[in-house]
């Protein structure tokens, strides 16, 4: 079965700083999803990547899928307190069954 490892597990940054979260898969990724979760709430869809080398951006968040399709990164530029939460990567297995990583807990200090 596919395993996803996220790093770091937690991150504390000063407001305005850039940061990167990584997601590494044990198998080739055919669809990689990034979600954000606030404590006690549901998962909010951020971005989906499918092609090797693909890069997508939304506001100050950029996600990339490497050429070999086994690693993805999520980069936040000029972090704000509103970026705080848990970031999850999810891999698309057959039948739309997503396997999730363990999450990266981000805190942004004002």
């Amino acid at each position, binding site marked *: 079965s596919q395993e996803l490892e996220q790093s770091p597990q937690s991150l504390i940054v000063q407001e305005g700083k850039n940061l990167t979260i990584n997601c590494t898969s044990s198998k080739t990724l055919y669809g990689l999803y990034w979600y954000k979760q606030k404590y006690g709430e549901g998962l909010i869809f951020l971005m989906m990547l499918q092609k090797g080398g693909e890069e997508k951006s939304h506001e100050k968040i950029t996600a990339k899928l490497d050429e070999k399709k086994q690693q993805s990164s999520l980069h936040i530029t000029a972090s704000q307190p509103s970026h705080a939460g848990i970031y999850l990567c999810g891999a698309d297995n057959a*039948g*739309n*069954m997503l396997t999730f990583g363990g999450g990266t807990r981000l805190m942004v200090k004002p």
Partner: protein
Amino acid sequence: EPEVTQTPSHQVTQMGQEVILRCVPISNHLYFYWYRQILGQKVEFLVSFYNNEISEKSEIFDDQFSVERPDGSNFTLKIRSTKLEDSAMYFCASNRGMGSPLHFGNGTRLTVT
């Protein structure tokens, strides 16, 4: 923007009791899912549902679990005889089809005592 809604937000039940968790997926979505997250652990897939039948299920989804779409809008997860280890956050999700992102509800926190 349309969203997936789940009720109740929190359910407390005694061990051995039956519970039904309810979800209203986004109206034009065709695929429906249940995931769960035990406190401090990963979000885990339970089951997917399409065209009024289960399309995939995980090892977690054993005989004590069942899903149903009783009408055109609701999607339910039933746990027949709850165990302490069923305590978790249960998330419902839906999407339009293969390769499209899943949209999640805010979850039902189930506490089994």
